[in-house]
């Protein structure tokens, strides 16, 4: 069987669809979570959802639905603790997360299920999805995407500056809860793809990567969704190809590592871009004397290699920690 034939098998097709929708949805919520500086929230919800999965295994109902219910309850509780702004709020969250994970493992044991069953949810098992699973994944992911993109002006404002948003008449608490619920839904959606312990990576890493290069919120959101899709579909194909060649490569870790590789590649570029942007700012507090053009081995111009910054009606050149504007026989300092 060729690799192309492997990709056309029904279970691979289902996996690709699930990866596509998960890759689009997780970074969409992730952008708002990173904007609030709550990058670890997804991890917390993931830990809590373990208990949900275990309850599903114990009661014989679908672990996806019990996980969604428990994850939403956990996310709302996290949001309430955060909103109250208790001084030891992060401690309360830590207790919640440990409780979720330990409770999940304990209940799975009580249910008489082996660790391998739970492991499917902890680290993902995208190749075992049936048609119903894929439909549920697609439906929930589509809901997440529609809300995150459709309400983006409101969600952006409520995350950027909650107090301002309240005085602008937005129901900030409702939007915060919406983000928490959407995060819980995406955690459960991504649970079968990358697993509960790695789910947060798919929400956060594409955002971290895209913001190395972007200058606006809208492009960050869009680029994160594209990067998330590339990572999840790409990781799936890489894992499938490796397995085809006889190596045992799990899909979830392949997706997360591919996503991280994207960050590692873009990060130096981001550092360089930010350094350049800082140089464009006026240098405050330093006003060295103007000096003669003869001090310079060359005339500043488009080709001279110094960073050119448009400044009103002329162009300044960044030069040894100050800005030069050519003026008759000397340089003014700007």
């Amino acid at each position, binding site marked *: 069987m060729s690799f192309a034939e492997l990709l056309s098998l029904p279970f691979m097709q289902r996996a690709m669809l699930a990866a596509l929708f998960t890759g689009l949805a997780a970074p969409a919520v992730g952008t708002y979570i*990173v904007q609030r500086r709550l990058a670890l929230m997804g991890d917390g919800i993931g830990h809590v959802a373990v208990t949900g999965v275990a309850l599903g295994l114990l009661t014989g109902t679908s672990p996806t639905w019990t996980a969604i219910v428990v994850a939403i309850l956990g996310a709302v509780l996290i949001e309430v603790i955060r909103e109250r702004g208790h001084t030891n709020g992060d401690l309360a969250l830590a207790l919640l997360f440990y409780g979720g994970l330990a409770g999940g493992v304990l209940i799975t044991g009580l249910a008489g299920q082996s660790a391998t069953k739970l492991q499917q949810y902890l680290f993902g098992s995208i190749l075992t999805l049936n048609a119903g699973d894929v439909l549920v994944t697609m439906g929930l992911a589509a809901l997440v995407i529609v809300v995150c993109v459709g309400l983006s*002006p409101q969600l952006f*404002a409520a995350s*950027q500056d909650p*107090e301002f948003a*309240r*005085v602008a*008449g937005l129901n900030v608490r409702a939007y915060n809860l919406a983000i928490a619920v959407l995060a819980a839904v995406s955690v459960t959606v991504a649970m079968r793809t990358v697993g509960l312990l790695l789910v947060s990576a798919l929400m956060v890493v594409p955002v971290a990567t895209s913001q190395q290069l972007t200058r606006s919120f809208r492009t960050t959101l869009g680029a994160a969704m594209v990067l998330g899709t590339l990572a999840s579909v790409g990781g799936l194909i890489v894992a499938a190809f490796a397995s085809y060649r006889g190596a045992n490569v799990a899909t979830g870790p392949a997706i997360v590592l591919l996503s991280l590789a994207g960050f590692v590649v873009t990060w130096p570029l981001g550092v360089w871009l930010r350094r350049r942007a800082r140089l464009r700012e006026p240098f405050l507090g330093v006003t060295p004397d103007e000096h003669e053009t003869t001090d310079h081995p060359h005339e500043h111009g488009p080709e001279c290699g110094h960073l050119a910054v448009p400044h009103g009606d002329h162009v300044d050149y960044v030069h040894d920690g100050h800005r030069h504007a050519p003026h008759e026989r000397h340089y003014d300092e700007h």
Partner: protein
Amino acid sequence: MSVIAARNMTVAIGGRPVLRGIDLDVQDGDFVALMGANGSGKTTLVRALTKLWPLTRGTAELFGTALDRFEAWHRIGYVPQRSTAASGVPASVGEVVASGRLSRRRLLRPMSRADRAAVRDAIDVVGLTGRVRDPVSHLSGGQQQRVLIARALAGEPDLFFLDEPTAGVDLPSQQALAGALAEVKRRGATIVLVAHELGPLADLVDRAVVMRDGRIVHDGAPLADHEVHDPALGDPHTHHHHGRPRLSDHAPEIRLGPGGRA
């Protein structure tokens, strides 16, 4: 018309009184500077008037509507006390300013032509034309303050609350800010400005309200920065019974307690 009418406004935070029986009237078109030392209650007064903090006692009206029932948020422009306009994800100047337009936009509708024009105009007024697409995190602290003011301007409000917009801001930005506020004032908006020191804004101020320990101790003519911190202005720890300057003739709200304490 009375834009703000507060009677016996009292706010306690965690059981500690922060505002004690504030009476305040602000008329249409006033430019009021709310001054006083740190912890005197200026910010809490603004937060109570914007419904960010509940009142413990007393009443307040905005545009003649009681605060509990007030919903006309598009009439209010708020510039919260912030050192930065940035958050965890890049956002452009245009995007941050556009969020000030939400009080006039409906859900799931794209920005109208009027929305775009208001955003552009707000950015022009604060002197950041040409930086619409720049990320706010690349701007200086003073420029970020101007972005926050443009965001409040974009909603075309009738009443502005500005909380310490000049704190830690370089002089060129303070001057740009003064220019922007002069334009806002010229357009007829009412402005309540919380400031520790006025700097270049001093010329715009019509009226100074000075607070100390949650009470208003001066309400009237603008004061120079050094006068605000004059111990004679009701400082509880120095009892100047003699020669206390009569600071204001038209401030009936000041009730002198025992020992001349306001």
